[in-house]
């Protein structure tokens, strides 16, 4: 197992109270496997990614749990070792390339720095290697682009440049946090093509995070659905899309024209809005929006349990049905 | 449970409520009770101690003495009124949790948690009170020159808290009278500067176009001058007395505010609520007054506190140079100047008025800092506002 997350809990300690952005999550990623994490905005997906790298900003932190990467618990690793994991073991690309690239350094330098740090190349070699990485990411005129500053690139180019930086350390796991959300539709397609190409070519594991189930379904072998800091359903992607069990997942799929077309329920979204994480509903936090909810759901949060082969779900009604 | 416990406390004896602090003590709010009591006891002590002056003030033609006595009475009335109201409030909300969630309540709570800012407010209020009460408090006539040879350059002592100056005048008395000059000039000049700046900036922002362009080019020129040079030039052109000095300070310091307010309003101007106000058919000036200015209020509050400090400092600087308030009228600035040549033998002449000045300026800047943190914790301090 490449990555095993166990009972991960992360919180922000705010003036207004404790905000549990990740509230007891466990999952595995095998080498070479692509795993998807979906959920509406604000449900804690990014914080899961940052928890794995132990990079949650103040006033937040990982409170408990284990993040086993190649058998070692990252949360208890000495800083020196942890730095080697970051970049060389696990690479990450962020939602907004414009914000994640340092505005005052040339793209080439930002890539070369990573290469020098993790692969120990000399300055000049690192630069030509950086140009190669840029080319591999499908950037035209890589030599010229290496000398550009981030503000001189288009949105899609910036995204490619950021992926190049993440790939420069040759990580075994790539976390892609909303890799296409900030982009135009056509560019979105290009970037997801690029990700698939990386997947094929480098055989690395990918944790793809998005609110867009379509994108995830397209790439991931297995998919996890997240709601208010918890996983509510995990399954092989085909099964999850074909036979969703959890009412929330069903709602998500129902909201998508292509995926939802086959199911008998007419195209529809989920009523209501994501609750405030500071003021969560009791019991199953989904109950105010759930069409199956009854009094049982309001008491205790349902545990994530096996509902079928390689298929887990956190819903009282689903367990009753099976 | 709690409610039942609170029940017998609900109606403390009426009389007790009228003695400031007693009501609080009865309700278990010891800290506030003791503070209120101390405050009222001190006020009453003052009245009794300086009874002659307190009473005489009403039969003299001097407005400032009359004001001082009235102020004492108001202080007493105020503390009684406040403690009555506060006791009522505590009783009403007994048992309930008192954590308001409105932005103002949150800001107030944040501010109160900032101890330095709260102390600063106390110091500022204390200094202003001392300034107003100067005619009642001062042990000596600030202008009286007694037997010079016997009294000049006396070091600080019980008789003369801050010592005496070269003419044998009591420096404590002069410092209190100096406080009146310095503190009132600072406040008035700030009000003038903020008013002009706010109006000017609003007009520029609201009308935009050529008006805005012309107005802001004038501001550019004005801001290019080092403020203190402008002040120096103006005190050179006009004979400086208190009124003129207030005007000079106020009239040199407004462009920063104007620029700031303009920027603030421009960003608000495009927001939806202005559109809706316009849709209802409100006239232009009403839109500005009703919507835009209140939205820019909290930053103005912060800069106002800084501006008072700036104005007091500028007045002190000018007076120190002999170009502002001139002796024999005491101001902290000219008092420091009076002591500057005798630092070795009579350090207290320059030390105390300058110390009070410094304390005032520090208090204002800590206050501004506290206000900023409380009102807009995300905003980061500009170096110069």
């Amino acid at each position, binding site marked *: 197992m490449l990555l095993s997350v166990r009972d991960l809990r992360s919180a922000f300690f705010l003036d207004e109270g404790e905000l549990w952005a990740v509230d007891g999550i466990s999952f595995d990623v095998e080498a070479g496997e692509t795993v998807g994490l979906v959920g509406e905005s604000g449900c804690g997906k990014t914080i899961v990614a*940052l928890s794995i*790298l132990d990079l949650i900003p103040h006033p937040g932190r990982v409170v408990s749990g284990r993040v086993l990467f190649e058998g070692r618990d990252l949360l208890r690793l000495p800083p020196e070792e942890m730095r080697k994991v970051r970049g060389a073991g696990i690479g*990450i690309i962020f939602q907004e390339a414009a914000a994640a690239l340092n505005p005052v350094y040339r793209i080439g330098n930002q890539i070369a720095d990573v290469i020098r740090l993790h692969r120990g190349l000399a300055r000049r070699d690192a630069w030509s290697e950086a140009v190669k990485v840029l080319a591999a990411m499908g950037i035209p005129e890589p030599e010229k682009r290496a000398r550009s500053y981030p503000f001189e690139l288009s949105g899609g180019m910036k995204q490619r440049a950021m992926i190049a930086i993440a790939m420069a350390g040759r990580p075994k796991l790539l976390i892609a946090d909303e890799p296409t959300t900030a982009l135009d539709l056509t560019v979105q397609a290009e970037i997801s093509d690029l990700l698939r190409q990386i997947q094929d070519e480098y055989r690395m594991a990918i944790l793809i995070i998005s609110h867009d189930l379509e994108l995830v379904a397209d790439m991931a072998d297995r998919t996890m659905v997240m709601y208010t800091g918890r996983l509510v359903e995990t399954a092989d992607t085909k099964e999850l899309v074909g036979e969703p069990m959890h009412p929330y997942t069903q709602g998500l799929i129902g909201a998508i024209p292509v995926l939802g077309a086959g199911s008998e329920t007419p195209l529809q979204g989920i009523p209501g809005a994501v609750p405030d994480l500071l003021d969560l509903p009791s019991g199953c936090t989904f109950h105010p929006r759930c069409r199956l909810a009854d009094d049982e759901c309001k008491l205790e949060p349902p545990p994530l349990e096996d509902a079928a082969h390689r298929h887990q779900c956190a819903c009282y009604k689903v367990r009753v049905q099976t | 449970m709690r409610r039942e416990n609170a029940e017998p406390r609900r109606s403390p004896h009426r009389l007790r409520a009228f003695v400031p602090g007693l009501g609080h003590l009865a309700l278990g709010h010891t800290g506030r009770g003791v503070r209120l009591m101390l405050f009222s006891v001190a006020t009453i002590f003052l009245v009794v101690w300086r009874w002659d002056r307190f009473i005489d003030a009403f039969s003299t033609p001097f407005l400032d003495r009359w004001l001082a006595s009235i102020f004492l009475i108001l202080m007493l009335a105020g503390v009684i009124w406040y403690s009555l109201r506060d006791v009522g409030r505590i009783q009403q909300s007994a048992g309930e949790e008192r954590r308001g969630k409105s932005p103002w309540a949150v800001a107030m709570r944040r501010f109160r948690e900032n101890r330095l800012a709260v102390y600063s407010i106390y110091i500022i209020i204390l200094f202003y009170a001392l300034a107003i009460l100067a005619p009642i408090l001062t042990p000596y006539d600030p202008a009286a020159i007694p037997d010079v040879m016997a009294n000049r350059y006396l070091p600080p002592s019980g008789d003369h808290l801050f010592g005496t100056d070269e003419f044998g005048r009591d420096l404590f008395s002069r410092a209190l009278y100096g406080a009146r000059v310095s503190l009132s000039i600072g406040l008035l000049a700030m009000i003038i500067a903020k008013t002009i700046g706010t109006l000017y900036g609003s007009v520029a922002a609201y009308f935009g176009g050529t008006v805005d362009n012309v107005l802001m080019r004038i501001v550019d020129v004005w801001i290019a*001058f080092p403020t*203190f040079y402008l002040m*120096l030039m103006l*005190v*050179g052109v006009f004979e400086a007395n208190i009124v003129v000095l207030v005007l000079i300070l106020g009239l040199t310091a407004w462009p920063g505010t104007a620029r700031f307010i303009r920027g603030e309003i421009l960003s608000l101007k495009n927001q939806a609520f202005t559109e809706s106000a316009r849709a209802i058919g409100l006239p232009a000036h009403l839109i500005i007054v009703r919507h835009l200015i209140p939205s820019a209020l909290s930053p103005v509050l912060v800069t106002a506190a800084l501006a008072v400090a700036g104005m007091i400092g500028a007045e002190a600087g000018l007076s120190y140079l002999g170009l502002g308030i001139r002796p024999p009228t005491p101001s902290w600035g000219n008092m420091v100047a009076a002591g500057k040549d005798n630092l070795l033998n009579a350090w207290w002449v320059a030390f105390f008025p300058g110390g009070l000045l410094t304390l005032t300026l520090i208090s204002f800047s800590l206050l501004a800092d506290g206000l900023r943190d409380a009102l807009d914790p995300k905003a980061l301090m500009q170096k*110069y506002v």
Partner: protein
Amino acid sequence: MLKYIIKRLLLSVPLVLGIVTATFFIARLAPGDPMDMYLEPQRQRQVDPEVIELMRKRYGLDQPIHVQYVTWIKNVARGDFGESFRHRRPVRDIVAEAVPYTLQLTILALLLDALFGISLGIISAVKQYTKLDKTLTVGSLIVYAIPGFWLALMLIMLFSVNLGWFPTSQTRSMNYEDLTMIGKFLDRLWHLALPVFVLGIAGAAGTARYMRNRLLEVLNEEYIVAARARGFRERTVIVKHALRNALIPIVTIYGMSLPFLLGGATIIETIFAWPGMGRLTVAAVGGRDYPIIMATTTIAALLTVLGNLLADVTYAAVDPRVSYDAPRKR
């Protein structure tokens, strides 16, 4: 780059014209005849009315105001500020002697400001949420608020009068002429120490606060998290990724701090008997020496404009995002 500089220079021409105009009209705001001011110092001598007329002619005060204004602009353009009422010498010469002293003082103060301000600001930001940060933050607020003249007097009292470590005033020691080159230099620094400290320390306090907040702001940026996620050391993250971004706007702040320094220098120069522009102005205001007041005020404003210009050009040079073709939007 050169094009950018020229463009910025041209853009400041109207501003400079505005400054020169403003000085003229403020000076003419004075109630009464400007000649009265000239005569005031010698009023005891009962000047002959004919002489007054002659003087009026000589200073061009017999002309209508718009003619005077045009003359003033022309003269300023040639660097001619007239003749001092007091010293009976060309103002240009008097001011030219004073400006270098003021520049020595302000430039050193600016250095002190940068040195202490930036480093303390960085320490404060890196140690956020610690006692040290709190102390530095409150301390800088307090230092920023202390009035310079009082601080100067207290330092003189302590270090000059009581301890005798530094001179109380003046620019050089009695034996200055006998000193070697290095000796002269050290002697000058020794005389500059207190005034530079007083002048620079308030700015340093302001810079420290600004630097702290700026750096904290940058440390919250996503590219900092991104840099950490690439495995760089915390030191590298701060020094290489955060600091450069945080320092860029400081340049503009320094452009803005010049008017405050010049203003502060007036009092400090007077206290330390430092023969710069500030002391000259203060003396001129006391003696109503109009030509000098107008000259120094104009020059102070021009220096401010120049400072801002330098700041903008430096900014353009250090920030890759600024293109030289378009003027930077404010």
